[in-house]
């Protein structure tokens, strides 16, 4: 259809682009790989620099997508094939089986209570558990259960089916098959977001070896009231409240030795936000941020850093730690760094270290690039047609990009860019309808 648009990725960028287009009367197909829209923003506790509760400001937009008469959500789905050209793309989307009939499921979660299989919850970065039949988080949209066949006893061992027995709506369907959906759209917006670099590669920091070294996305789930500890920030090793926390910036980013040379753009300020959250929860805990350059470039960000220094007494140390060691008995940590003022190596005791890893493009971008013909850059971000003058266009006319998958950026910029991509898609719609 000439006035329809495909949006790939149901994070804040994809949601914003969907709403802008749907609100002007365009027909939107929003494809999301996981069982729920919401993306990274749904996982965050608070957002900088306003300290708004992240899910609280996001959830109304998620529901708006769900309820919008012009938006068809295809969750738990992936784009497989794209053909045609601007104005006339034909897209094949694979809807993976949830083994639950979406129309029947009321989201009552009885099945989740009775399911006997526990497995780490991806949404909580593996820190908490979910069941083999699950909804990724309480505000999931759509609020429909999904069976993970890799862990379900029926699929792995042929037994159980408890969920089917207890479901009051008769929604569980073990026979569900993958479904291919064919869409005709005039343009496509890619908004696939980012992944977190696995810091265990950097052995000197001990991530994966030392229990009390965590990374920032794990921190977000630990400090969040809906997270696995209900917002109680405790050490993974002994569940005690940490008295000293060190945040380490640029873990795998701005690296000259083979990781990622670029700056992830958001870490300095989110570490500042996370420090303020620590102080809000536990005013007597000391917080240190070790950084190379304090990059607080967005609107109100420098003021936010100043506030963390003055009002919250967060300690900012210009240093890039060389390593972290652990006392095997107490599982307390020591962070080794160079005190540049004194020109000597020092160590700082820490009960917990939070690494701020490079944020990296989604692995799936490669498949999408192949399917759509949109080019990737050397790291795997989608390459804008012109980095200066055409930031949301790609080399393929009618295919647009926005959010972190275009290059590192924060939420307000992702939202602005998403609206920007929506404007370009609206231009395509106007041009196509003129031709017709």
């Amino acid at each position, binding site marked *: 259809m000439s006035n329809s648009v495909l949006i790939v990725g149901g994070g*804040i960028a994809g949601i*914003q682009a969907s709403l*802008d287009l749907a609100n*002007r009367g365009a027909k939107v197909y929003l494809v999301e790989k996981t069982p729920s829209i919401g993306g990274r923003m749904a996982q965050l506790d608070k957002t900088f*620099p306003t300290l*708004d509760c992240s899910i*609280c*400001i996001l*959830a*109304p*937009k998620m*529901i*708006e997508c*769900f309820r919008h008469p012009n938006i068809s959500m295809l969750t738990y789905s992936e784009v497989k094939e794209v053909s045609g050209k601007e104005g006339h793309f034909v897209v094949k989307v694979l809807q993976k089986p949830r083994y639950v009939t979406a129309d029947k499921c009321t*989201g*009552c979660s009885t099945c989740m209570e009775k399911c006997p299989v526990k497995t780490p919850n991806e949404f909580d970065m593996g820190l908490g558990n979910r069941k083999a039949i699950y909804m990724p988080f*309480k*505000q999931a*949209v*759509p*609020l429909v259960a999904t069976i993970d066949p890799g862990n379900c006893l029926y699929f792995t061992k042929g037994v159980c089916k408890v969920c089917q027995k207890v479901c009051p709506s008769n929604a569980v369907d073990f026979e569900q098959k993958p479904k291919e959906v064919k869409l005709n759209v005039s343009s496509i917006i890619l908004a696939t977001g980012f992944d977190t670099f696995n810091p265990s590669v950097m052995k000197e920091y001990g991530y994966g070896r030392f229990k009390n070294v965590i990374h920032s996305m794990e921190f977000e789930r630990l400090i969040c*009231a*809906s997270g696995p500890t*209900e917002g109680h920030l405790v050490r993974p090793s002994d569940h005690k409240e940490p008295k000293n926390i060190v945040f380490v910036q640029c873990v795998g980013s701005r690296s*000259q030795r083979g990781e990622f*040379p*670029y*700056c992830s*753009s958001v870490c300095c300020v989110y570490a500042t936000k996370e420090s303020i959250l620590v102080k809000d929860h536990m005013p007597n805990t000391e917080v240190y941020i070790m950084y190379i350059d*304090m*990059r607080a*470039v967005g*609107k*109100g*960000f*420098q*003021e936010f850093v*100043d506030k963390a220094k003055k009002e919250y007494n967060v300690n900012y140390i210009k240093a890039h730690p060389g390593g972290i060691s652990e006392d095997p008995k107490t599982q307390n940590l020591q962070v080794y760094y160079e005190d*540049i*003022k004194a020109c000597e190596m020092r160590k700082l005791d820490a009960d917990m270290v939070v690494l701020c890893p490079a944020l990296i493009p989604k692995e799936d971008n490669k498949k999408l690039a192949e399917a759509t013909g949109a080019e990737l*850059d050397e790291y795997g971000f989608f390459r*804008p047609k012109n*980095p*200066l*003058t055409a*930031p949301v266009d790609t080399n393929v006319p009618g295919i647009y990009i926005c959010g972190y998958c275009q*290059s590192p950026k924060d939420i*307000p*910029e992702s*939202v*602005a*860019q998403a*609206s*920007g*991509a*929506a*404007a370009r898609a*609206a231009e395509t719609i*106007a*041009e196509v309808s003129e031709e017709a």
Partner: protein
Amino acid sequence: MSKEKQPKIGVFVCHCGVNIGAVVNVPEVVEYAKTLPNVAYAEGNLYTCSSEGLSKMKEAIKKYGLTQVVVASCTPRTHEPLFRGACEEAGLNKYLFHMANIREHCSWVHPKEQEKATQKAKEIVRMAAAKAALLEPQTEPEIDVLPSALVIGGGISGMSAAISLAHQGFSVHIVEKKDVLGGKLNELHKLYPVNKQSSEVVEEFIQAVKSNPKITLHTSSTVKNVDGFIGNFKVTLDQNGKEKAIDVGTVILATGAEVLEPNGKYCYGEDPNVITQFELERVMKEGKLKKPKNVVMIQCVGAREDKEGGRNYCSRICCAMAVKNALEIRELYPDSEVTVLYRDMQTYGKDFEEYYQKAREQFVQFIRFDAENPPEVIIKSKGEYSVRVEDILINDTVDLDADLIVLSTPLVQTEEAKELSKMLKVPLGADGFFLEAHVKLRPVDFATEGIFVCGTAHSPKTISESIAQAYAAASRAGIPMALKRVRTEAITSIIDEDLCTGCGTCIKLCPYSAIRKNERGIATVNDVLCKGCGVCAASCPEKAITMRHFSDKQVLAEATAALGGA
């Protein structure tokens, strides 16, 4: 509405997961709600805002014939539209919905006093039910939207917004105070990362603007006055002293920014070879940069500091600009030394960080200083300087000879923008830039409908960021214009003509200029302009003004219930 008809209120109390449920005893509040006057139905929900919660609400409205609905949960700021929407879907006018906030106003602030919090939640619900019983249906007037936009500012942001809107099919008027388009880009030399002359890039945009029949250009023009509201703004332009009137449906502010003059700092103004980064651009653009021996660039001059006329924000673009010009000078004159004195290198993201590394490879020297201990510039003789800086990375004092000193000063808000802020009644933030409706999620909107912002008028940003944001403003402005109609505020004031004495108090106080006197000298309200703030109702000496949805009767009922009355 008939007064005899007994209200049947439905109350839905939300656990909000543990947010409310872990503090407030929700089942107890539900039972209490059932005992309140006019309450016909009450239930608790894990998340009333979930699709399940909403469908249960809709079912209950139909099943029990509810006439008003109360949801006791979180904040109306985010969730009221959702619940109102559900009421509408169930056939209930959305103004028959009322929200009681038992999260922000109760569970979040009293986490350790569960019993008292439960009591307070009951009282909040009691107040809400008392008001809800008196709620009446309201209508939101619909107005037509002219399919044309006014873009104020003909820089890269304004041109990008205009081009996008024109491609979307709308007519656009660009107003530019100068006689040429291009704005700040006209002062720049080369642009990174395309390695093109700024003038070439500007020319492409100017051609796109001029060749588009949907765009009307008003150069050497300023906006003299704006009247009206979304859908129908009446704009008066001043073009070289001549007035021009145009009507538009939406307005985009793309007025750009100015560069802070570093007067008195680092000998600026005392010697000709102490210049700003923008002045260096101009010199290079004109090809007049004489070969310097030693260039010293100083970052954060008047930025990230709130003393001596400085700004406490980071101006975002200056570090990358310094890196670009340092490389440019090294390429032009490979024998010239360039040193950049910085506090934190703000080369964020992908391209700038690469560029910074390239500058280091090209032997541009970077010296880091502390804000507490800024560099010092001494004029040795005309055009010869000595710069002393405490290098915190080697913990030593460094003396540098220089014959060109370049100061990176921040972008600041323009005087015109301050006037436009008053004229259009859109706010400026503490940093002087236009303040958007929501910092995170509504980056180009204002609370006032139909007016949008983009580019450096919003905050310092790069060219590509300005273009993306300009498209965003074009998307947001395009929505009401594509729909051709918008609904406006229902909560407005009503003037009782029999009571009004025409004293004019409300007219003077109304911040939206929504009240005028009619031919009989009586105050009348323009419903489209009125935002329902209530200032007029509070100040009317004759009590002739009532606010829709907030009548004295409704507010008093709520207050009486708060004090324990029914």
